């Protein structure tokens, strides 16, 4: 039994922090935030590629480093902490995981090396409108290898080269690989709550689509990819929550009211203690998810749901109470609180809302109970 990062993993995590401290400051994040034409930080993306992080969990035979998923979690935690404005999740947690989960040997051989080399940005396209997409309302359709339909929102859809798209084919839901530079693809960048992460509406009209995984398994595969992404996203959320607690603490220690630091008032102390408690519960659930993901344990679905629910709640609480602890300053554009407030909502929604995951968690409890 050992329930922490190993020394090697800690070293990796520390190296990641050092790299991001230099290459992903709040100025880097704000460059993307403040420029509507900029969808991501291309320099940072290149740097992250050069560090090998994009292929951290990709097998060596496909050009990756072949490390475990726990190492990827360590990187994710640091990316979340730095509020990194890059399509890392779309490319690594969604596209690469989908390929490794369901791709044919040829598909893996074709695409994974490009991901590892930083030559390709990915996207995962399921949603078609407000609410959760389901068998009854899924409209996207593939006929004769040609995809027609509209996906909205698609995170990083405006900059992605390759998308995994959920669509019906012959009445059966499936996942499909679609190259977005090809014909029959129209993309429109959308305004969102977190402009540091880009989002598009993608209209497909006869775009070439190649099936990924078995026919009829579209929803099951989507859930399986979401389980994997949920664990990795939980670490980004955790990194963000920890950063919010740190910011709140630093500000409170240095802000004086009525002749003493506001960090000495119980209203602030207990608020920060509440943050700490939520963050620690999220961390423990995330660690269990990392273990389940890493060893491919049968517990993954329930561990992923618990990790996602706990870390979404922790980051929401930490990000909003960080603003509150900063008082008026926290409400300004100039102070960084809102970067995390925005990102907390982006991460909470990108793989489906926490309430959806609570339901999935209880379904897993029922299944375990029935077994």
């Amino acid at each position, binding site marked *: 039994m050992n329930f922490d990062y190993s020394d090697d993993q800690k070293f990796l995590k520390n190296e990641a922090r050092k790299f991001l401290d230099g290459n992903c400051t709040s100025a880097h994040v704000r460059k993307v935030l403040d420029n509507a034409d900029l969808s991501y930080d291309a320099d940072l993306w290149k740097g992250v590629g050069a560090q090998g992080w994009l292929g951290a969990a990709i097998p060596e035979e496909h050009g990756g480093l072949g490390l475990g998923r726990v190492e990827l979690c360590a990187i994710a935690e640091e990316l979340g902490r730095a509020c990194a404005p890059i399509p890392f999740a779309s490319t690594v947690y969604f596209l690469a995981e989908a390929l490794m989960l369901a791709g044919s040997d040829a598909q893996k051989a074709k695409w994974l090396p490009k991901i590892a080399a930083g030559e390709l940005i990915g996207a995962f396209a399921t*949603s078609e409108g*407000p609410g959760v997409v389901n068998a009854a309302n899924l409209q996207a359709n593939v006929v004769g290898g040609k995809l027609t339909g509209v996906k909205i929102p698609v995170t990083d859809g405006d900059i992605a080269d390759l998308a995994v798209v959920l669509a019906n084919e012959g009445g059966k839901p499936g996942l499909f690989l679609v190259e977005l530079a090809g014909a029959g693809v129209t993309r429109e960048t959308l305004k969102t709550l977190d402009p540091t992460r880009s989002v598009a509406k993608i209209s497909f009209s006869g775009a070439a689509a190649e099936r990924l995984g078995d026919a009829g398994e579209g929803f099951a595969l989507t859930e399986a990819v979401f389980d994997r992404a949920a664990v990795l996203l939980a670490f980004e959320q955790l990194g963000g929550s920890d950063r919010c607690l740190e910011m709140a603490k630093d*500000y409170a220690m240095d802000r004086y009211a009525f002749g003493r630091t506001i960090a000495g008032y119980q209203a602030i102390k207990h608020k920060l203690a509440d943050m700490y408690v939520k963050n620690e519960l999220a961390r423990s659930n995330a660690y269990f998810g990392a273990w389940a993901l890493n060893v491919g344990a049968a517990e993954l679905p329930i561990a992923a749901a618990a990790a996602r629910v706990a870390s979404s709640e922790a980051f929401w609480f930490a990000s909003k109470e960080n603003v509150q602890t900063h008082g008026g300053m926290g409400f*300004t554009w100039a102070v960084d609180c*809102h970067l995390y407030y925005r990102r907390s909502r982006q991460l909470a*929604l990108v793989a*489906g*809302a926490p*309430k959806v995951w609570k339901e999935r968690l209880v379904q897993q409890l029922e299944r375990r109970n029935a077994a």
Partner: protein
Amino acid sequence: MDFNDSPEEAAFRIEVRTWLEANAPKKVDTKKMSEPEILKLAKAWQATKAEARFTCMTWPEALGGRGATPIQNVIYNQEESKFDVPRGFFDIGLGMCVPTVMAFANDETKQRFVAPAVRGEEIWCQLFSEPSAGSDVAGLRTRAVKDGDDWVINGQKVWTSGAHYCDFGILLVRTNPDVPKHKGLTMFWIDMKAPGVEVRPIHQMSGGSNFNEVYFTDLRINDSQRLGAVGDGWKVALVTLMNERLAVGGSTGPNYAEIMALARSTVTEDGNALANDAFREKLADWYVQAEGLKLTRFRTMTALSRGQTPGPESSIGKIISANQLQDLSNSAMELEDQFGIITDTAIAPMEAAFQQSLMWAPGLRIAGGTDEILKNIIAERVLGLPGDVRVDKDVAFKDMPTGR
């Protein structure tokens, strides 16, 4: 306990409604107008109201009011809210600043300023908060130094609503740093267009700029602009702030009715999101809170109409409404699932009202007293619990520890 108008109240309501129908400006789509254009409309409507004595209604006739009861005031506001008239520009001035002027200025000053303010010709702002003096307003640092009959002012104010369109302001400054902080303050009125006053908008996390920073560089004013005695500024400010709680606290943003509509229109596998029991329980909670607040305001009105002074209990309004707005906005975005991140008003449900209120709610939890300060106020002034331990009571202001 009676929700119906008395015969007199009913008659007054008809009078108001008739007048509004005849005089309220036609509905205009202000979304496409600039702020100066809207302000022009607002000033015209304020003049019309002042003419008919439907503004500052509870003030005596000599000051432009009509000596109305608080309930009559409520009735007017209820009826006016059914019309799409421009609102909000005059609340701080007429609700907080001008009453302070009326209470502390000399007759000449009052005669000069009250009537134009009532008619909406001149607008007032309130200059108290500073970067290092938020919840602890009395910790402010803007200095006024006596120079003959004048005062020379240097420093910075922050969170000043409407400073960029205001004509005058009431300004709280430190005139003596050698005494404990509450004792070295003095209040003045100033001309916002005077040299030495510079207004800069604050870029908020919500994207907008409803507030300003105001910088004073060797602003020179005459001692006749003083409100109250030198060193009595804190007492004067308390009069201003007492009126704040009545002015602030109305709900801004979508409520249970809007999110109910969103849920109804959100398709799920089983029908729509309004069928979800978890959502329904939350909806019930929001309704009970919102209704409770509305009814609490009615109770306050009843107290007013009995000649009682509504007290700090009105602090509960903002604690509840700001937190509910944040929670409800977040729940609405969760209802939309992945789609909830979109803020494009042409695409997002209800023109992205929920996404906008999510970004606005954090400000509401801070402006006009943070949640934490309001709970302190309830604990101390309503329940009579002891104040926090104060280490700054007897320390000269200049010797107080400070941070950023």
